[in-house]
């Protein structure tokens, strides 16, 4: 374990890199999934194509997607954009489902109630449906965040340096603690981000935990 002690600086620096690279795909994924999910939720015709296509994206192996992107998009092969785009694609694949499920989960009576109150369509979406879909979307976002962070390590295979460096470098040098440090660091970062999202969810959606203490727990 002396390797870890000797290389704390490196680990921290790679961790920072790792976070910097994983955050944009998570955000982009959410921003793209919202309109796509909304469309799929709203339109019967578009629903299947959207859900199936995004589901299909998820089956693309990252090992292949990463090197192909620069060829398809014309980025520099060294560009971090390759990783960001690839991870965004995976995040979208996960999140579109959640957005659709989330919007579907909004109680129809509540939706009707909003219509009856005189919410216009746009306002209803933003002020009623989106917040109420929040818990399900958040659940998806947490999965997307964890898997993005874990998947980002594959970036080292296309020359993007992050915590994945510790895997390949440690493997070449046969330094077990180096790889272990990488695995643990990735897991810790993922779990911390997960926790932050969870806390953020609680702050932003206080009503989800506001139920009657006993009445709700009455047995069936």
């Amino acid at each position, binding site marked *: 374990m002396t390797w870890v002690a000797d290389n704390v600086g490196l680990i921290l620096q790679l961790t920072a890199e790792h976070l910097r690279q994983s955050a944009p795909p998570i955000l982009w994924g959410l921003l793209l999934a919202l309109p796509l999910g909304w469309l799929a939720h709203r339109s019967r015709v578009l629903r299947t194509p959207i859900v199936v296509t995004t589901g299909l994206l998820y089956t693309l192996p990252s090992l292949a997607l990463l090197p192909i992107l620069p060829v398809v998009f014309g980025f520099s092969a060294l560009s971090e954009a390759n990783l960001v785009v690839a991870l965004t694609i995976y995040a979208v694949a996960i999140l579109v489902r959640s957005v659709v499920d989330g919007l579907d989960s909004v*109680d129809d*009576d*509540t939706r*009707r*109630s*909003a*219509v*009856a*109150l*005189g*919410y*216009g369509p746009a*306002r209803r979406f933003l002020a*009623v449906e989106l*917040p*109420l879909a*929040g818990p399900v979307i958040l659940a998806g976002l947490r999965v997307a965040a964890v898997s993005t962070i874990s998947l980002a390590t594959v970036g080292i295979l296309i020359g993007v340096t992050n915590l994945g460096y510790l895997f390949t470098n440690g493997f070449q040098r046969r330094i077990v603690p180096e790889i272990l440090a990488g695995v643990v660091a990735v897991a810790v970062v993922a779990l911390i981000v997960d926790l932050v999202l969870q806390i953020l969810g609680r702050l932003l*959606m*206080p*009503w989800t935990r*506001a*139920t*009657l203490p006993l*009445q*709700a727990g009455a047995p069936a």
Partner: protein
Amino acid sequence: MGIEFRSASKSYPGGAKAVDDFSLHVPSRTTTVLVGSSGCGKTTLLRMVNRMVDPTEGAVLIDDEDVRTRDAVQLRRSIGYVMQNGGLLPHLRVVDNIATVPVLQGAPRRQARERARELLEVVGLDASLAERYPGQLSGGQQQRVGVARALAAEPNILLMDEPFGAVDPIVRAELQRELIRLQQELGKTILFVTHDIDEAFLLGDHVVILDHGARVVQQGSPAEILAEPADDFVRAFVGMGGGRRELTLRETDGRTVVVDGSGRVQGVLKDATG
């Protein structure tokens, strides 16, 4: 004046006619109750008034003006609507639920909230509930908040769709009394939907009994309907079929009790004034 249905019909795609040629005049400042069994078209009728459903034929008029000439969103804001489960927005605090429509109409939030707190009292709730979320209220409390919200924009018309269907009988009785009191004070035009004939007779100045397709089987005051049921359907519906409304008197322990057709005690005669 009031609400008028003129030969209104509604067919849903792929279904039979939910409402078939329905005409009715709902006078201002009265409570009219639509009563009928499940699926007979009550909700559809109610929603024609605030344009959540547009009739496929015929028209609905408010104060002699076809609702279709009015902007749907504006129209809805001007009409109070109370749903079965209160229909509160679960992510807004009670006070913001009540203030929804005034805020949508551009009232300053602060002022709307103040008014919302007043309304809490009007519907008989403690002001301390204002900061709770709907999930933290009992069914009956939610229902009252639903009424308060419907009143917030000071509408002339209240649409109530089985507003007390989901609460237990005791709370329900309380809510019914409360509504009668409120209506005496406020004098709104109320269109009320229920499938409970007892509730209809209790609350309605005018009761409309509907069969499938919103066919009007009989209408009139409760006493009129009870005294002269139009046909067997009404008789069954108001409970006379089972003998529930065919009462006889019987002496028990020196009191006169009223007994229905199946031998069940309905109550005690207060004083036997013929």
